[in-house]
């Protein structure tokens, strides 16, 4: 009798007297203890240290509690719109994200296409690689004046800076991925006589996908880095100019809030690309 009841509790509890819910709760407890608690403790300790250091009178930077009090209006209503540059944090970030979306999308299309070209053709590699190697070392902001001269307008210039920043790692990783496609996959394609288009979609892209996605991930991080810097110079709505504007108005607390937001959005962008990559390349990296 006793045995049947313990079997009915399912595999979790087999052989023990622990009910299943308690096992599940225990796992959650382990997760909290192992994954959530350590960062919370470290962040808490750092905030406390900051609070102590910046609470004394005459400190150059506001303490975290001071910053929170100063910026509470911004945090409480991220979607206000008073016209001009005076809009909520959410609008500032969305404006920046929109520029990144344009520039990054262009970089993905151009980067993957050029990467495939360079990966496929030795001639193209020899012709283009020196150019890539030189241009990719140009810092993002160094492109801004020349693109302002070319586009005569701030917004397309910022988008161009995003594009030119993100495109190099995408090109280089894609071409390495294409070059590393195992000879066997090519042979399989040759035996079943896939034509060029079929080979591209069915073999080349999936085989190179892990490399392409690591390029895309580096690219999205770089474009987020570049947009903040570019926006500081071009002005208008956007998180970069928000920071510059706050500095000019000596609103240090606003700067701190903006930095936290920039960091979190960058983290989310990175995770998003990584997540999409994992979904698409399931199993590809494992032989």
């Amino acid at each position, binding site marked *: 009798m006793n045995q049947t009841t313990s079997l009915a509790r399912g595999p979790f509890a087999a052989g023990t007297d622990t009910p299943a819910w308690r096992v599940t709760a225990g796992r959650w407890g382990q997760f909290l203890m192992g994954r959530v608690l350590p960062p919370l403790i470290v962040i808490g300790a750092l905030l406390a240290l900051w609070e102590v250091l910046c609470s004394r009178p005459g400190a150059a930077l506001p303490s975290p509690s001071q910053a929170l009090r100063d910026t509470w209006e911004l945090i409480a209503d991220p979607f206000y719109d008073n016209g001009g540059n005076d809009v909520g944090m959410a609008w500032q970030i969305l404006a920046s994200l929109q520029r990144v979306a344009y520039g990054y999308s262009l970089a993905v299309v151009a980067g993957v296409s050029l990467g495939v070209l360079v990966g496929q053709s030795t001639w193209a590699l020899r012709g283009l690689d020196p150019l890539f190697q030189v241009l990719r070392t140009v810092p993002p902001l160094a492109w801004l004046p020349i693109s302002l001269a070319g586009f005569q307008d701030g917004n397309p210039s910022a988008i161009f800076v995003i594009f030119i920043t993100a495109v190099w790692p995408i090109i280089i990783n894609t071409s390495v991925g294409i070059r590393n496609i195992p000879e066997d996959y090519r*042979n399989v394609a040759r035996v079943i006589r896939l034509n060029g288009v079929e080979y591209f979609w069915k073999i080349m892209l999936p085989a190179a996908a892990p490399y392409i996605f690591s390029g895309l991930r580096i690219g999205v991080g770089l474009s987020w880095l570049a947009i903040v810097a570019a926006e500081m110079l071009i002005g208008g709505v956007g998180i970069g100019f928000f920071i510059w504007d706050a500095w000019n108005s000596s609103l240090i607390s606003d700067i701190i809030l903006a930095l936290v937001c920039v960091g979190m959005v960058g983290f989310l962008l990175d995770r998003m690309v990584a997540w999409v990559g994992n979904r698409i390349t399931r*199993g590809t990296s494992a032989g």
Partner: protein
Amino acid sequence: MTKAFLDISHVDMSFTRNGVTNPVLRDINLSVESGEYISLIGHSGCGKSTVLNIVAGLLQATSGGVIVDGREVNAPGPDRALVFQNHSLLPWLTVYQNVEIAVDKIFRHGKTAAERREWILHNLEMVSMSHALDRLPSEISGGMKQRVGIARALAMEPKVLLLDEPFGALDALTRAHLQDEVMRIQSELRNTVMMITHDVDEAVLLSDRIVMMTNGPSATIGQILDIELPRPRDRLALADDPRYNHYRHEVLSFLYEKQRKVEDIGARRASVAAPQAQRA
């Protein structure tokens, strides 16, 4: 003389690298009848894979040619389906999709979608892989991957099935099991098969003829041995069969007496010397 189904005639092959020409194969001549099971055996580096790749069309012979069913080979194609040593499944496709990619391409016009699906399932059934249709290659064992590789090749309805050391990467038990299955499938389908191996037992057990190759450079066919053992063959019964042991002995003496590999001694010396060098 009747016209052979697969005819390799006067094939020479040399690779040129950095201006230095290395002769690999010299004057390979071989005629294979339809439904015959041929093994190519030889020491590693003797160019047996090169022969197979030339028949597959993946390599072009320097001179000479290959004719399959009256047509000259000059490019790869599904009529000479290849089973690769390391299975070469596409890791992002499931077991089913790995066969599907070949079947959908080859029978796009020949079969309806329903017929293609049935044909894929039939071929996976033949290698006993019906239970794992939706698994990815990374989720199945090495023996299972090789089965799927065989199913993919069989699904192309090849005129000649080319096997490049198909069991080389498998453990002994899995290998024996898969050899038995290949024999069973071969007795059902009567395919013409050309297999590369360096396993003497495997060659004797599976083949109608064993083609023994001399050592490179300029390797060629040294001897051809007819295996006149009745089919179906049973590995346990054959183990005590004097004819089986005679064939085995023939191949072994070719490989280890007539074509003894000189490099091996040098390699052994090097491997003995290496630890001493490390110590020094």
